[in-house]
């Protein structure tokens, strides 16, 4: 008998989810994106509401938003996706043998895969009176309703717990007109997120708003009043305080009751592996109820990372792994700026940089270990929180930023965007993304209306930060302010694109180790999710292949962006621009005559002198390109490519009365040697003949300054989106040394930078010290790097000559008549 059933023709598998909260529903959303037809989905939710944004309960309590505002998935969403939804039904039993769950009203549902997303329960202090009317927790919409009702009838509220949740509850109740006292057992507030000085500042400003605090107080009893409702709170030291409403916010406990009763291994949470599976592999668990490597996360960012991995596994891809998260916190109390992340206390082997202005109410502390930022806490000025967090998450070497680190990103050379960097103070009509014309209001609206949580989501929906990326930090801040502090940050390791979970580094390593020569080989081996990648990963793969195996891996024109396929720059009207190479910015009367003749012959509408000392012919029709190139009879300028662009020079010692070196000839030599060099991004060079630096070498990827005794080499400069001054690498004596040291640096960049990272980004990541070690300290290594570059260049040919004179890829330039 043939037992096989063709894929997709048998009955669908059944997926049951217990718990209808943010982490669980996010998993379903991710799963529906990957495999919309794989499962029949059933969801049980104990609350009578569809999935809502629990983080925003605080603004609802404070009267700044309504319950309707915070619904993430309205009932329609469940309908549209054919999800069977059981609201107000609590699952009380899992029958693992029969593979079915049972709710308190008797509803049963069978499963092939079960997802436990039961979240957490508030911890209730085991003191006398804890069960009195008027004693509640702060966890769901029902709690918020109870608090709002109490605030209209009663006066004295006591919040037990001076952590994040307790303070948000206290703030909300105060806004609702109650007299609020916060009782806290610790010596200062929010001790899991703040150090003492920051906590004192926070306490002071909350006191100024009218909140009262009782620190280091242990609750002994909640006292019953005449009406039967709670009336006061008694402490172990004998003190007491009036209390008509008591909110317990002393922590949460993973809700593992159901899992434990069905025999699943639990240890401070339902224990899961890196693919979010419990000890029963048919049963997954994610969210606040799940314990991954001993940690049950309570913030939304890590939970969304888990959701992605879980969905991936449920969809049978099975290559994603969750490896834990670093989290950051922001308090959602209007008018209070507070941010903390990582290890902000510090300890052995760490150093701390402090900034304290108690009068101005600003306090910042950054903790550094081994030249990396490992934690920080900020109070009063959190503008750079997102930036610090990204430095921390990416483990960037900050030794070179150190002197300016405390003063924020603006201070570290950001000129591109008028220094606008304060999301919270921007008005809705102010422009955030200059490339796509997106205002703050557009972004806020999209975040609210579409329920966005990640930078990726915002990019897709609004286009903000999707072009040059200079506003990324700002968009992250707007996300943090709008979606509530703990928005989903990018995962610790960044995958290449949506087609794979592998990082750029892992892909490169696989290409090197396995000697892959074609894109399909890489995709098959590394289990790409898409049949042939996307417009983001294919050009990267193509570059990695040809740069790793020059002469062996074949360049794939179909995986090149159009400019590098047509070897000219596409313009907004679909015509192209042509920039022939002029070595070192030098030209001849004969070249200029040919350029003029070409412009006439092909009726080229615009001729412009570029910033890189060359001439640009704009508005060339694609079919004219081979003819234009043939008539110009000049080398390709590669102005269209992630490649060596221009080498800008000053006139140097041959003419200039100040010149100390022949910078023009040095520039010509550099350009001739590095001509045809493909790179992770464009590469610009310049050579000045004296320190007056007329060739502006400080903003080039490699800049050379001639001095009387030799040549100074600078690397990693950038004049684009974010102006960066090049850093001094080394001083050498001879032009040959200039070639070798510059070439070795460029080859290192070619071999190790991620695709689309400029030299400055590469340097930021690895640090100048690392580059010095490779180029200056290791003579053999430098020599080998330079040799590898020369070899890679020796197999490249001038693409214009191949196409204009040898008819290569003719079809690219011909239209078909019909």
């Amino acid at each position: 008998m043939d037992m096989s059933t063709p894929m997709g023709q048998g009955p669908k598998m059944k997926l049951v989810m217990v718990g209808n909260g943010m982490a669980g529903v996010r998993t379903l959303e991710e799963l529906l994106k990957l495999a919309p037809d794989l499962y029949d989905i059933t969801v049980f939710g104990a609350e009578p509401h569809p999935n809502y944004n629990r983080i925003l309960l605080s603004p609802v309590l404070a009267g700044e938003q309504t319950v309707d505002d915070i619904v993430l998935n309205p009932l329609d969403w469940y309908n549209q996706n054919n999800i069977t939804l059981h609201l107000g039904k609590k699952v009380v039993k899992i029958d693992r043998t029969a593979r079915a769950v049972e709710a308190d009203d008797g509803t049963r549902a069978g499963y092939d895969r079960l997802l436990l997303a039961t979240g957490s329960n508030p911890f209730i202090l085991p003191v006398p009176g804890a069960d009195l009317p008027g004693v509640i927790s702060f966890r769901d919409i029902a709690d918020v309703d109870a608090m709002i009702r109490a605030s209209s009838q009663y006066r004295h509220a006591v919040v037990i717990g001076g952590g994040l949740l307790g303070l948000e509850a206290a703030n909300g109740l105060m806004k609702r007109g109650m007299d609020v006292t916060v009782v806290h057992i610790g010596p200062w507030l929010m001790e899991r997120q703040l150090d003492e000085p920051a906590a004192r500042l926070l306490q002071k400003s909350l006191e100024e708003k009218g909140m009262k605090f009782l620190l280091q107080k242990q609750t002994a009893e909640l006292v019953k009043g005449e009406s039967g409702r709670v009336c006061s709170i008694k402490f172990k030291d004998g003190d007491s305080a009036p209390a008509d409403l008591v909110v317990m916010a002393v922590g949460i406990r993973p809700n593992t009751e159901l899992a434990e009763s069905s025999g699943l291994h639990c240890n401070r949470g339902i224990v899961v592996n890196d693919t979010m599976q419990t000890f029963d592999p048919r049963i997954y668990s994610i969210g606040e109820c799940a314990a991954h490597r001993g940690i049950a996360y309570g913030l939304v960012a890590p939970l969304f990372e888990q959701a992605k991995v879980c969905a991936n596994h449920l969809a049978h891809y099975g290559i994603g792994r969750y490896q834990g998260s670093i989290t950051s916190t922001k308090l959602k109390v209007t008018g209070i700026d507070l941010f903390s992340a990582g290890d902000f206390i510090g300890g052995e082997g760490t150093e701390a940089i402090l900034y304290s202005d108690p009068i101005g109410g600003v306090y910042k502390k950054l903790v550094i270990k081994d030249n990396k930022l490992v934690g920080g806490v900020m109070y009063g000025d959190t503008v750079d929180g997102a930036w610090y967090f990204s430095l921390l998450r990416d483990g960037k070497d900050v030794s070179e930023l150190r002197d300016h680190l405390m003063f924020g990103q603006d201070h570290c050379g950001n000129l591109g965007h008028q220094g606008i960097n304060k999301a919270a103070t921007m008005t809705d009509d102010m422009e955030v993304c200059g490339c796509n014309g997106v205002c703050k209001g557009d972004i806020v609206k999209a975040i609210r209306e579409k329920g966005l949580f990640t930078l990726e989501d915002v990019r897709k929906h609004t286009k903000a930060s999707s072009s040059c990326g200079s506003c990324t930090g700002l968009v992250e801040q707007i996300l943090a302010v709008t979606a509530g502090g703990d928005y989903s940050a990018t995962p610790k390791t960044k995958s290449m694109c949506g087609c794979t979970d592998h990082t750029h580094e892992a892909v490169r390593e696989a290409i090197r180790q396995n000697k892959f020569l074609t894109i399909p080989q890489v995709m098959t081996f590394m289990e790409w999710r898409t049949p042939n990648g996307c417009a983001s990963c294919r050009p990267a793969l193509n570059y990695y292949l040809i740069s790793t195996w020059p002469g062996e891996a074949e360049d794939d024109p179909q995986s090149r962006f159009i400019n590098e396929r047509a070897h000219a720059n596409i313009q907004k009207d679909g015509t192209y621009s042509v920039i022939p190479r002029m070595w070192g910015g030098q030209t001849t009367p004969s070249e200029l005559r040919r350029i003029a003749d070409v412009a006439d012959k092909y009726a080229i509408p615009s001729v412009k002198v570029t910033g890189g000392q060359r001439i640009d012919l704009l508005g060339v029709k694609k079919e004219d390109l081979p003819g234009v190139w043939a008539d110009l009879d000049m080398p390709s300028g590669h102005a269209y490519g992630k490649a060596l662009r221009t080498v800008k020079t000053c006139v140097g010692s041959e003419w200039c009365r100040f010149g100390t070196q022949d910078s023009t000839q040095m520039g010509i030599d550099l350009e001739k040697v590095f001509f045809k060099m493909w790179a992770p991004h464009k590469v610009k060079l310049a050579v000045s003949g004296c320190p007056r630096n007329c060739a502006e070498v400080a903003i080039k990827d490699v800049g050379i300054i001639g001095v009387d005794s030799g040549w100074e080499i600078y690397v990693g400069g950038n004049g684009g989106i974010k102006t960066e001054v090049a850093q001094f690498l080394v001083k050498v004596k001879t032009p040959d040394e200039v070639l070798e040291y510059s070439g070795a640096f460029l080859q290192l960049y070619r071999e190790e930078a991620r695709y689309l990272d400029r030299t400055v980004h590469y340097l930021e990541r690895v640090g100048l010290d690392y580059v010095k070690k490779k180029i200056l300290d290791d003579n053999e290594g430098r020599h080998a790097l330079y040799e590898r570059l020369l070899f890679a260049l020796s197999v490249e040919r001038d693409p214009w000559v191949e196409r204009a004179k040898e008819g290569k890829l003719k079809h690219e330039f011909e239209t078909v008549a019909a």
Partner: protein
Amino acid sequence: MNQWTDILDLNDIPKLGARVVRHGNLDIAVFRTADDEVFALEDRCPHKGGPLSQGIVHGKKVTCPMHNWNIELDSGCAIAPDQGCAREFPVKLEGGRVWLDLSTLARVAA
């Protein structure tokens, strides 16, 4: 009435690529996927008119070279959340040759 016309050989279009077919003043992008399926769309991105024929083809999609909109080859429509569609034209593959229906082209070009 249909007016199917033999336009070009399948092998004249690179795999994961496109060719531009010009009919009067109308440019049509004819795409070829990795599995040798062919699709024909007006060579104008619904966003800002970018030439789709110049984009990178992947799966059954093309990414516009101007602002990276992703367009589905079988419908001509942008992938959400972007909105808009490029006009699609009937195309067929017979005996390794690519055929277009000139009558529909003429209607649009006119």
